[in-house]
Structure formats: C-alpha cells, structure tokens
C-alpha cells in the first residue's frame, strides 16, 4: 500500500492527531499543563547560566514596552475602562445622593434619639461642654481608642520603612547636611518668636478640648508643627538636646499606656455596672469632665511626638 502523502504531511493531518489521541500518546483534555516536560535538574554552572540567559531574553521580549503593541493597547484599554468606571460610579452616586433625605432639614433619620441624648444629657453625663469631645471620648470612646492605635500602627510602619541602621545613619547625616538650613538668620529670628506662641497655642487647644473647639489631636498637631519649625530653624543638634528617639519612645509608651488603662477601667466599670471613682467635676471648669482632660493630654503628647517623628523620619531616617 502506498501512501499518497509523505510522513511529514501526514503528521500535520487531523487524522494523525486523532490517532495519537486514540492510542493515548497525546492529550487534548488536560492540554500541555502537566504533559509539558519537567526540566531535568542540572547542577552544572553552564546550564544554570544558559537558563538565566534565556530567562533574560524572554523578559526583554516581554517587557520591551516601546515595541510591545499589545502592552500599549492594554494600557490604553485599562485607562479607558477606568475612566468609564469612574463615570459610572459618579452617575451611581449622584443617583443615590438624589434619593437621600434632604440636607439641612430637621426631620431626618439622622436626628434621632441618639443625637438628642448626646446634646441634652451630654453635659451632665460626661461633664464636657464640648459635646463632640464628650461623644468621642466617652460615649464612643472605643472608636477613639482604636483611632489612636491607628496612628500608633502607622508610626510603627513608618519606623520599619525609614529607620536606618547605625552605619546608614552616618551616611544619611552627611547627606542631610545639604538640606539643613545654614543658620538662616531670618528663619531663626522668626522661629524664636513664633515657636513659643505656636506651642502655647497648641497646649491651650489641648487643655481646652473639653470646653471648646479643640482636643488632643488638633492641639498635638499644632505642637508638632511648632517642633518641626524649630527643627528647621535650628537643626537636629539643638533638638536632640531635649528630644531623641528614646524620649519619643517613652512618651508614646506612657501616653498610650495611660490611655489604654484609663479607658479599660472605664469600660470595665461601665460594662459591669460598677461605680466609677473618677469625679466629673463642675462643667465648664478647666479641671472637669472626668477622664476627658487627661486623655486629651495623652493624645496630644502622642500626636505631637508622632508628627515630629514623621518629619524626622521622612527627612533622614532618624532623629
């Protein structure tokens, strides 16, 4: 019997493939996944090098962005779909907003018994004139406890990312000299004048947190800004006299521990219906409203130090 086709041609036909499948030599079901040969392990250097080279070549080919049409197209497509998605989201949210209760009116689900009690009984129950402060530090103190730990966590991650080793530190020190203002007279003069005011203002905000607008976070941020200004005017040498990494560590530790323990006490007594020994004081006086003032101070300290620490970390990876 003579074949009309040559063997090579025959191997291209579907009949050949069908036969191979029938006799179990080739597999259409599972494809090439597990049938592809696992590479033999080759301990010799040459093979490893060759493998690396091939790998590089493939990478070059794949990531040749300037000539890669499909990557470019994909990029465009990605952008287009993202924009469309954004427009869709806008439309969706606008429709949603249009169905929401009308703004500024009194008869809304938001103005219910919760807000009512905060306003009516807040002064009496928390001792804070600033109802918002009373709410976040007493009624909903757990949130605020979490919030201060968010800040703490963020500081830890920033430390992980930016804090340098001893050896790197010296190098960074040298680099940092270039950014250091070289005893700028104007800056220093203004700073001598401004920094105390800023810091005193910050302290005022913190101490007044339960009496008026303000509180630990905002006051702390102001103090932190003051410290950063001082640092910029006089350099790390001066600040290191009173503020090092150690100071920061312990201030944070004590403030947060105090916060945690104080709130734990109040949660524990609250939940177990025990009487709390902390006096509420006369509303309106500076020493009043139970734990709110000390908590504000603690938060303020943490925030001030953290803001300063962020700045120092961003600048040269250490204090």
């Amino acid at each position, binding site marked *: 019997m003579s074949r009309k086709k040559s063997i090579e041609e025959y191997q291209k036909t579907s009949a050949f493939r069908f036969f191979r499948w029938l006799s179990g030599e080739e597999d259409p079901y599972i494809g090439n996944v597990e049938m592809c040969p696992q590479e033999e*392990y080759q301990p010799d250097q040459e093979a490893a090098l060759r493998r690396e080279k091939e790998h590089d070549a493939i990478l070059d080919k794949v990531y040749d962005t300037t000539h890669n049409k499909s990557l470019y197209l994909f990029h465009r497509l990605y952008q287009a779909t993202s924009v469309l998605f954004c427009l869709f989201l806008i439309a969706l949210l606008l429709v949603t907003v249009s169905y929401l209760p009308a703004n500024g009116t009194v008869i809304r689900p938001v103005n219910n018994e919760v807000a009512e009690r905060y306003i009516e009984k807040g002064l009496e129950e928390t001792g804070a004139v600033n109802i918002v402060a009373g709410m976040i530090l007493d009624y909903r103190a757990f*949130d605020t406890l979490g919030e201060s730990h968010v800040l703490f966590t963020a500081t830890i991650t920033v430390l*992980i990312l930016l804090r340098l080793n001893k050896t790197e530190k010296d190098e960074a020190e040298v680099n940092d000299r270039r950014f250091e203002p070289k005893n700028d007279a104007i800056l220093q003069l203004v700073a001598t004048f401004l920094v105390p005011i800023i810091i005193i203002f910050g302290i005022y905000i913190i101490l007044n947190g339960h009496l008026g607008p303000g509180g630990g976070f905002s006051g702390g941020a102001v103090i932190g800004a003051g410290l950063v200004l001082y640092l910029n005017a006089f350099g790390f040498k001066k600040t290191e006299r009173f503020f090092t990494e150690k100071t920061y560590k312990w201030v944070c530790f004590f403030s947060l521990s105090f916060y945690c323990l104080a709130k734990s006490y109040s949660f524990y007594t609250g939940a177990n219906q025990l009487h709390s020994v902390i006096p509420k004081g006369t509303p309106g006086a500076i020493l009043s409203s139970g734990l709110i003032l000390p908590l504000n101070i603690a938060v303020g300290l943490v925030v001030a130090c953290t803001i300063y620490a962020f700045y120092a970390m961003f600048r040269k990876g250490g204090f």
Partner: protein
Amino acid sequence: MDFICNFPFFSILISLFSGTICSVLPAKAAKAVNRLVIAAVGLMSAVLLLYLLSTGESFIYWMGHFPAPWGNEIRAGVLEAGMALFFCVIMYLSMAGGAHKLPGEVVESKHSLYYILVNLLLSSLLALVYTNDMFTAYVFVEINTISACGLIMIRQVGRTIEAAVRYMIMSLLGSGLLLFGLCIMYDLTGHLLMSNIKESVALIMANGEYQIPLIVAVALMCIGLCIKSALFPFHSWLPDAYGYSTVSSAAILSSLVSKGYIFLLIKIIYRVIGFDIFNSTRIIDVLFVFGLMGMIFGSLSAIKENDIRRMIAFSSVAQIGYIYMGFGMGTQAGMVASIFHILSHAATKSLLFIAAIGLTDVSGGSRKFIDLTGAAYRNKWAGVAFTAGSLSMVGIPLFSGFISKLLFAQAAVQVEGKMLASLIVLGISTVLNAVYFMKTVIRIYTSEQDAPYRSITFRDRKGYTVVLVCSVLLNVILGVSSQPVVDMIGQGLAMFA
C-alpha cells in the same frame, strides 16, 4: 453578668495594650509577650466558647457606661468566640512556624516592631470579630490594613515594598468605599450600632422609602470588603505580598487578614442588613459570579507559576473565590459552607506556607520548582506536611478540604438556578487544584541524588516540626470530626439573628 463575659473585652484590650508594651521592650521579651498574649487570648476564647455553648445565647457587652444606641458595644456569640479561638490558634502556629526564619528576613533592630504589628493585628482581628458597631469596625479595619501592610513590607526587598504599595492602594479603595457606604447607611438609619441599623433597615425595606440608596450603600460596603479581601479581579497585589514577605507574615496574611474582612462582611450581612434582605438584592449574584471567576482564574494563574510560594498565593485567590461563591448562593447552607471553608482554608494555607519554607530551606533558599526537586527527602517533615496540605486542598477525604467541598456541593444542590454553574466550576477548580498541587508534590518527591544541599532533620528544628505536626493534626481534625464544627457554625449563625 458573669465574669467570663469580660473575656472578649479583655482579649481585645490585652492584645492592643501588648502592642504598646512591646514598643519599649527588647526583641526577645517582645517575642515572649507576643506568644504569651496569643496563648492567653486563645485560652480566654476557648473558655468563652465553652461558656457560650453551655448558656446557648449570645451576650452584649457595653464598652462604657451607656447602653445600645448611645455607647459602643461588643457582642459575643458562639461563632465569634469560635472564630477568635481559631484565629489565635492559627496565628500562634504561624508565628511559631516562621520564628526560625525571622532573623534572616528582618533586620535585627526591627524585630520588636514586628511583634508590635502582630499584636495589633491580632487585636484588630478580635475587634472585627466581636464588634457590634459599624464605625468601630471601620477603625479596626484600618488598623488591620496598616499592620498587614507593615507585615508585608517588614522584609525589605523591592518586591515586598511594591506589593505593599499595591496592597495599600487596593485596601484604601476598599476602605473608601466601605466608609462611604457606611456614611450613606448612617444617613438613612441614623445609627451606627449594628442591631439598631438592622431595625431601621427592616423598617426602610417595609416602607419603600430610601430603598435605592440603601441598596447602593450595601453594595458599596460589600464591594469595599471584597476588594480588601482580594476577591478575584482585585488580587493583583496578593501574589507578591504573600510570595515575598516573611513566612509568618505570609501565613498570617493569607489565612487571617483576608478572613477578618470576610467575617466582617458576614456580620454585616447578618447583623446589619439581614440575611433575607441581602439575598433579595442582586448583590449576591455579583458575588457569586466573581467568586466563580476567582476560582477558575486563580487556579489557572497558579498552574502557570514557577515559584512555589507564589503558587500557593494564587491558590488563595481561588479559595477566596470559593468563599464568595458560598455567599452568592444566598442560602444558610452556603453560608455555613463558606464559614467552614474560612476555617479549613486558614488551617491549610498556613500549613502550606510553613511547609513550603521548610522545603525551600533545603534547596538553597530557591523557590523555583527545579531546585525543589527532591526537597521532601531532605526535609521529611516539611515534605509530609506539604503533601498533607496539598491533599487537603485537592479535597481528598479525611482532610478538611474535602468537607468544605462537600458542604459547598450540598449547598449548591439546594439552589436551583445556581446549581449547575457552581458544581461545574467547583469540579473544574478542584481538578485544576489537583494539577498544580500534585505536580508540586511529585516534584518534591522526585529524588535527586546530586543536589548539593544539606538536609534538615527533626533535631535541627524541633519547634518548627512540632508546628507542622500540629497544623496537620488541625487539618485532619477538621476533616474527620467536622460535624461539631458545622453544628457550631449553624448555632452561631442562628445567634446572629
């Protein structure tokens, strides 16, 4: 109120406070504190679980002096206590299993920071589990996100930092959506506590007013949490993050962090929106479809992978798809299956990550399959553990993976419209799982006599081996005596209502 009722509060506070304490401790002490805290919290959760099982009803715990709509609350039921216990067990195993690698992966001076993050992560997970307040949940979601990000990038190679950035971006998108949904929800109901919101939601659904924004709010929250838990199209950060971070981080991230979000979603579904109302929306269909896609595409990506840890990471994408598929079925059975899968996947994935590191250790630190040839002979315990984990993933009976697949299939058969799709995809995905896990198992058991690597025996790594054995046992226990666990899940879900 019994003293035991204080335990959820104690667990959250102890782990939170230990984070602060660790910041002033040297690394060794921090490590001890960390272990101690995890063990203590685990113990308390176990006691609490027993207590709750004996009383048979959940309780509310005031966080402060004020009751429901005014003050914060946490709430503990069987499911919460069980989850907390499970999270502690897994976290302890992951930490202990990766402990010997830590000096090589993280700079010495940053070890105590690592333990701080783990403590904070634990506390945020516990808070997510126990909380009864939406805004508290949001705050602790953020702690969870940030500390998870820290865990990813504490091993500072380029990939992890890039992965951390991608993770943060995705997470922040998710948090943004979650918070926006939360605000709309607050606007519609005027409450932040879950039980109060639920009452108002029921009212709204009955009245018909504000229905559209309500559903949008639910959708936003769901999508936000989906993004954060790396459901399929949002998983781009995951392989690098799990593949290159430290061992413990990878194990914790894959088995706990995403599960925390998923558990929060379950809470939202049951405690905020109401299961029936949630099921009447189209959202479950979306979750269902994305879950199915995740199952297939995650596995496909895993097959293509040439790096053992990235492969395991991609398999997580598929497994999260399973969980969302269970949500998407919209039945109680599907939910139970999903929750069981949360447990089973957490147990298996941490085992796989820890075992994989044992294998790469005896292959010159390389994670490429070529170099792993015969690794199981060089580190026998890791080889056996990896095989056990793979078998569980593939769904061989006697391992936990089989039970979860069984539960999924049982749940699927009860849902008329989604039965065929879910069963077919379940089958395909299982086979794909088998493809890549068995390929790896055979690879590590292909003996290679000339490999220039030293082998590791039991004596070299006692703690590590014990962890492996415990994880395998945990898996087998879940696989063999699943009925009590399933019952407990059912009971816990019943307590949610």
